[in-house]
C-alpha cells in the first residue's frame, strides 16, 4: 500500500525597511518592525491558526493513519514568539499528539550551504536546538532552504548527523525514474533522499484555484484517484509545499481548507492509504537507486535550479558581499550584529532581486514586495553597506583595545 508524505514549509523573513543611502552610517534600523508584525498576524489568522486546527482535527479523527511533517525556519519561530505566540502554542499542541515530525533546516532560511560550510552547520545546529527547546523532539530529517540539494550538500548534511533529506524530484535528475520511491545520495549512499512529487504537489499549491486549469475544480475524489493511478510499484507520494498555500496563496474562499480536510479522510477511509512522516518512511523503505547531483537543484521554477536566487549580477554581488564579512563578523562577537547579518541571509532577499520574472513566472511577482528587482537590490545594498561599515569599524577597534598601548588611534 502506498504512503503519502505531507511536508509543509513554514517561513517568514524579516522584511527590510525602506533604507535610503543617506541612512547609511546613520542608523541600523534595517527591519520593518511594523510590516513584520502586521504580516505575521495576517498570515496567522488566515493560514497558520485555521490550518493547524484542521490538522489537529484530522489527527484526532484518524490517529496513527494521519501524520504530517513541518519545517519551520528559525526566523518564523522567532517571529511567532515576538508577534504571534498563539501560533507557536498551536504548533506545540500539534507536537504533543506525537503525529508530527519537525525537520531541521538552516535557522535563517539561508543559502549558506552554497557559500560557507561553517555558517551552514552553525545555523543547522541553532535550528536543531530551537526545535528541541520548543517542541521537545530532536530533528533527524533535514530539508535545506528551497529544497536545494547537491552531492556536496548531502555530504555536509550527513556529517551533521542526518540520515534522511528531502529534495525536489527534478526531472533532469530523475530522467525516467519515479519520484515516488526512496533514493540515496550517490556521493554518500547512507543518506536517504525523499523526492517531491512536483506534479501532485503543485496541483494543490499552485493550481488549486486556477480556473483556466482543465482539472479545476480539484476535488478530493479526483486527487485520490490520481494517486491510485500512479505506478503500482510506487511506494510514497511526497506532497511538499509551503504551508501558506492554505489560506494565504489559496484563499479560504477557494475551498482549500475543505480540501485539506476531505482529501486525507478519503485517502485513509476509502483507499486505506496512510500519511507518514519522513523518518518513518526512512526506516520502512529501502533506496532503489543512487542519485548523482553534481550541480545544485531546487524546487523553484521550470529549471529547478538556483537562478531564482543567484546568478544575475545583482544577486551575485549582494550574496558575495554578504559573506565577505563572515570572518570579521565572527571575530567581533557582537550578538546584535551577527543576528542582523543572519536576517540578511534569508533567501527571500535574493529572490526579490530576480529578473527572470520579466519573462516568466507570475509566482515571483506575487511574492515580491518590491516593484522591481532593481529597487530590491538598491535597498538591500544600502543596508548591507551600513552593516559592512559597522563591522569594519568594530573590527579595527578591537585589536587597538587589546593592544592597549595607543589611546588615540580609534577613529570617531
Amino acid at each position: 500500500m502506498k504512503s503519502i508524505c505531507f511536508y509543509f514549509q513554514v517561513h517568514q523573513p524579516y522584511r527590510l525597511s525602506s533604507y535610503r543611502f543617506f541612512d547609511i552610517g546613520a542608523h541600523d534600523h534595517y527591519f520593518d518592525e511594523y510590516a513584520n508584525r502586521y504580516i505575521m498576524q495576517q498570515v496567522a489568522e488566515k493560514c497558520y491558526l485555521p490550518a493547524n486546527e484542521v490538522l489537529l482535527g484530522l489527527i484526532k479523527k484518524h490517529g496513527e493513519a494521519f501524520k504530517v511533517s513541518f519545517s519551520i525556519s528559525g526566523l518564523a519561530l522567532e517571529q511567532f514568539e515576538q508577534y504571534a505566540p498563539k501560533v507557536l502554542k498551536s504548533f506545540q499542541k500539534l507536537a504533543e499528539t506525537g503525529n508530527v515530525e519537525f525537520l531541521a533546516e538552516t535557522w535563517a532560511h539561508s543559502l549558506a550551504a552554497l557559500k560557507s560550510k561553517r555558517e551552514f552547520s552553525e545555523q543547522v545546529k541553532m535550528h536543531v536546538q530551537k526545535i528541541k527547546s520548543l517542541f521537545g523532539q530532536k530533528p533527524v530529517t533535514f530539508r535545506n532552504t528551497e529544497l536545494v540539494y547537491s552531492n556536496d550538500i548531502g555530504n555536509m548534511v550527513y556529517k551533521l548527523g542526518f540520515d534522511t533529506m528531502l529534495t525536489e524530484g527534478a526531472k533532469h535528475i530523475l530522467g525516467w525514474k519515479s519520484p515516488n520511491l526512496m533514493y540515496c545520495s550517490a556521493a554518500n549512499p547512507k543518506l536517504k533522499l525523499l523526492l517531491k512529487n512536483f506534479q501532485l504537489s503543485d496541483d494543490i499549491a499552485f493550481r488549486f484555484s486556477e480556473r483556466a486549469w482543465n482539472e479545476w475544480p480539484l476535488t478530493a475524489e479526483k486527487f485520490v484517484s490520481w494517486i491510485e493511478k500512479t505506478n503500482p510499484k510506487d511506494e510514497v507520494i511526497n506532497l511538499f509545499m509551503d504551508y501558506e498555500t492554505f489560506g494565504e496563496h489559496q484563499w479560504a474562499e477557494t475551498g482549500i481548507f475543505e480540501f485539506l480536510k476531505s482529501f486525507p479522510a478519503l485517502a485513509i477511509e476509502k483507499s486505506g492509504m496512510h500519511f507518514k512522516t519522513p523518518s518513518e518512511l526512512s526506516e520502512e523503505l529501502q533506496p532503489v537507486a543512487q542519485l548523482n547531483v553534481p550541480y545544485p537543484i531546487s524546487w523553484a521554477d521550470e529549471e529547478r535550479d538556483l537562478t531564482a536566487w543567484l546568478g544575475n549580477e545583482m544577486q551575485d554581488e549582494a550574496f558575495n558581499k554578504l559573506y565577505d564579512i563572515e570572518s570579521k563578523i565572527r571575530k567581533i562577537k557582537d550578538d546584535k550584529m551577527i543576528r542582523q547579518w543572519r536576517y540578511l541571509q534569508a533567501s527571500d532577499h535574493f529572490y526579490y532581486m530576480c529578473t527572470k520574472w520579466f519573462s516568466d513566472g507570475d509566482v515571483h511577482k506575487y511574492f515580491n514586495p518590491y516593484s522591481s528587482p532593481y529597487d530590491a537590490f538598491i535597498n538591500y545594498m544600502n543596508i548591507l553597506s551600513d552593516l559592512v561599515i559597522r563591522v569594519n569599524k568594530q573590527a579595527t577597534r578591537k585589536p587597538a583595545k587589546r593592544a592597549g598601548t595607543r589611546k588615540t588611534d580609534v577613529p570617531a
Partner: protein
Amino acid sequence: MKALMFGWEFPPHISGGLGTACYGLTKALLKADVEILFVVPRMFGDEEPGNIRLISASEVTVDVRDEVYKSHENKISIMEIDSTLLPYSTEEEYFHLVEQIESGTRLEQLNLHARKFKFMGGYGKNLMEEVRRYAIVASNIARDNTFDIIHAHDWLTYLAGIEARKVSGKPLVVHMHATEFDRSGDNINQLVYTIEKAGMEAADMVIAVSHLTRNVVINRYGIDPEKVITVHNGVEPPRDSISFNIKRHVDEKIVTFLGRITYQKGPEYFIEAAYKVLQKDPDVRFVMAGSGDLLPGMIRRVAKLGMATRFHFTGFLKGDDVDRMFGLSDVYVMPSVSEPFGISPLEAMRSSVPVIISKQSGVAEVLNHALKVDYWDVDAIADAIYGVLHYPSMHAMFRNYGKAEVENIKWDQAGMKVKNIYKRMMQARS
C-alpha cells in the same frame, strides 16, 4: 495601402519627440508596404526623407474661391494668440521667430485666384494662424491625391486631418503624441484643448502613445474608449556616430538630465535629488542639458544650494552632441511630471547608460530594465542615483540587459500595429 499623413516636423528640424516619432513610424510603415504621403508645413531643403514622399504645404496652390479657404481664412484674423500660450518653447522656436521677423509671413500671389502660403514651420508666434492655413492646404492636397487613410500627428495637424476627411471621405486616425495636460499641467490652453478634442471626436480611431495617454484621452477628453488604441513608440537603431570614442575629462561620475527645461520634465526634482546625493558623495557631477522657460529659475536654485561647481548647464543639445552627452553619462534621469511616452531614456539605454525614469511616463510601461520612481519622490530619485553609482553590478545589469531590451523595442512592431489599425478602418468602411 496608402496613407496621407499630416505632421509638423521632420528630421532634422525637430524640437522634441514628435518629429523623431513620425520619422520612425513612417519608415516602419513603408517597410510594411504602406505608401506614405507625408505633409509638413515647410521644407528646409536638408530633410532626408529616404523613400518617404514629403510634401511641403508651402508649395501647394490654393484656390481662394474655395469654401474651405473662405471658412478658415475668415477665422485666421482672429486666431492670433498671445505668446505665453505657446505650447512649446525651445531655441528652435527662437530661431524661427528671428527668421520670421526677417522674412515676414506673406501670401504669394500667383494669379487672380491661386495662392500659396508661406509656412514658417516650428512653433512661432503665428502658430494658430499656421494651423488654420495648414488645414486649408490639407483640403487641397486631399482633393488632388489618392489615398486610403488619413493620419494626423498631434493637435497642430488635426484641423488639417478633419478637412482632408471632409473632402475625401476617407477614414481619419489622429495620433496623440502628447496632450495639452502633459504640456501645461492643469493650466491648459483652452483653444489647443478644443482642437485636440474636436480632432479626436471627428477621428475614426485615436492612437495613444501609452496607456497613460490613453487614460487621459478617455478621462479628460471624454473620448469613447472603444476607438482609442495604445501603440507604444519604438526607438531607432543607433547611428554609427555613437561608436566614436568619447573622452572624459573629469574623474567624477556624471549624472545627466536631458530634455526641455519645462514644467512637464520636472527639472526641479532632479536638482533637489542632486543636492541630496552631493551631501553624501561629493565626487559626482550633475549635468542639465536643454533649454526652456524654467532654465533661469533652475540656475538660481543650483546657485542657492551652493553646488554650482558640481552642477552644470549645457543649453540645448542636438544631433551628435546628444550622443556625446549620453556617452559621458553614468546615469540618465528623467523625472518627468507627465510624459506621454519619452524616447530619450531609450536612446540613453541604447548607449548602455542606466536610466531612472518617472512612473508618470509612458515609456515606463515598456521598460523592465529601468529604475522607476515617482517624480515627486526626491528621496527615491536620489537613492536610485546613489545605488547605480555605487553598486557595480547595476552597471553590469544595464549593460547586459538594458541595451538588449531597448533593441527589441522596434518601430517595426509599432508600424505593424498601425497598419492593422488602418486595415480595420478600411474594412469598416467597405
